Every structure is written in structure tokens, then in C-alpha cells.
């Protein structure tokens, strides 16, 4: 088994098509479209006809960052599970099973820490 290098040709074609389409559409609108001049209202972003309420660049709560960070850490944990499942039959079950159990137990301790600290609770409970 094993993927062949040539299997990735469709991926390359997809990327080229997607990139080419984006370049084509943006290029066409730049060439064909008319430039708006001296019309500050017309140059504002379109928000369903509403006047613009605030800038798109606003400060985000640190809670989003924390969730993203924790997601990545457990994401990396899951990455290890994939080769684990593939090679499970090639190694003595006692060795590889205990090995992964220890790995998961240590990260499970982290998960308990997160839950106990109420990190994933979005709003403070009264």
C-alpha cells in the first residue's frame, strides 16, 4: 500500500484552478470595473445597507485564545493516536497499550485540571 506521488496531481490541479479563478476574477474586476473616485460614502464597506457601526478590527476576549490553545494541545494528542492505531498490531499489545495508556493518563490529568478550574465555562455563574 502507500500513496503514490502521482496521486497528488489532482491536489496540484485543484490548487492551480482555485488560485487561477481567484486571480482571474480579481483581475477582471480590476481591469473592467470602474474606479470610484471622490466618493467616501460609496467606498465604505457594505453592511446590508446599514451605516457602519464600528471598525472590523476590534479587540477579542482572551477566552477565544484559551479555547484555541487548548484545542491545539488536544489536537496534537489526537495526532499521536493515528500512527498508534496503524502500528498497534505490529508491536506487543502489552507494550504499546500501556504506553498509550500512560500518555493518555497524563493528558487526562490536564483535562481534569481544565474542568476543575472552570476554564471552559463561558460566563461566570452567579
Amino acid at each position: 500500500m502507500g500513496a503514490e506521488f502521482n496521486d497528488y496531481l489532482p491536489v496540484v490541479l485543484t490548487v492551480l484552478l482555485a488560485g487561477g479563478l481567484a486571480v482571474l476574477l480579481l483581475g477582471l474586476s480590476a481591469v473592467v470595473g470602474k474606479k470610484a473616485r471622490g466618493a467616501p460614502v460609496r467606498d465604505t464597506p457594505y453592511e446590508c445597507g446599514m451605516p457602519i457601526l464600528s471598525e472590523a478590527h476590534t479587540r477579542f476576549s482572551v477566552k477565544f485564545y484559551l479555547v484555541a490553545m487548548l484545542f491545539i494541545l488536544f489536537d496534537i494528542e489526537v495526532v499521536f493516536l493515528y500512527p498508534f492505531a496503524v502500528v498497534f498490531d505490529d508491536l506487543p499489545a502489552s507494550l504499546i497499550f500501556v504506553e498509550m495508556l500512560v500518555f493518555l493518563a497524563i493528558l487526562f490529568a490536564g483535562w481534569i485540571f481544565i474542568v476543575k478550574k472552570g476554564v471552559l465555562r463561558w460566563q461566570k455563574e452567579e
Partner: protein
Amino acid sequence: MEPILAAAGAGHAVAFYAMAALAVASAVLMMTQRNPVACVLWLVVCFVGLAGLFVTLEAYFLAVIQVLVYAGAIMVLFLFVIMLLNLRPEDLKAVALPRIPLVGVVAALLLLAAVVTVISASRPYFGMSVAGILAEVGPTKDSVRDIGLPLFRDWLLPFEATSILLLAAIVGAVALTKRKV
């Protein structure tokens, strides 16, 4: 077998150098941008180029993980940090990084060490084509198993240490952001 290998080798070499050029060019563009969001997007392109390099080197599993973890998850994290700081263009102009010579010297030494290590490790392959190197190393039978077997058999301790590292990162992230809990 030989002609097929040679034909595949030419494609390999073209793809390899194209991906290498993409990765290097996007890395340079990333460093020269003033807008941090544009920096991050160029870094995504760089990571995709690296994933492409892994594909041309027949490390398919690494390529997929590179896109999933780096180009996906870690870039989201970077974007969050940038939105968290929310630097406006006028703030960026005011930021003039202090030039500390010692930092530059240490960084240059680290870079030198990395370059020397890579060059000395790739010494046996000097002057060989990409196809020749791939033939020398041998075909990839199963890129997941090729990583999994050494990882779970020969590198038990580093594997388990990874979980401690992840645990430390979890505790660190929580401690940094939830100081008052």
C-alpha cells in the same frame, strides 16, 4: 522499473524545487510585511509549501499533519493573538524594536548550528538528484507506519515526555489567562 523511476524522478525534482521556492519566497514575504495579518497569511503559504516538500519526499503522513496542525490550528492561534493585541497601523509605526546585539549574536549562532547540522547530515547525498536520493533511501511503503513503529518502539521516552510537555502547556495557558480563578 528504471524508466518509470526516472520519469517519476523528473516530476519529483520539479515539484521539489517548486515547493522549496514557494516556501522560501513566502517566508521572505512574511518577514517583510508590516501588517501582522498579512504576515500570518504568508506563513500559511510557507507551511503549505513545507507540506508540499514533505509530499515530494514521500512523507505523506507528515504532509497531512503539517497542513492540519500547522497551517490549520497553529495559524488560528496566531490570528487570535494578533486580534487579541489588535494593533492598528498607527500603533505599528510607533513600535521600534530595541536592537540588542547579544540577541542577534545568539540567534545567528543558533542558525549557524542548525545549518551546519543539516549540511553535515546531508553530506552523503551531495551532488545527487532528488530521484537519486529517494532511490538511495528506498521507497516509502507506508508513511504512517514508518513514523509509528520507531515512535512507539524506539522512542518511548520522548513520546511519553511529549505528554508531559503538552500538560505543561495546558497548565501554562490556563495560568496565564485565568490568573484570578
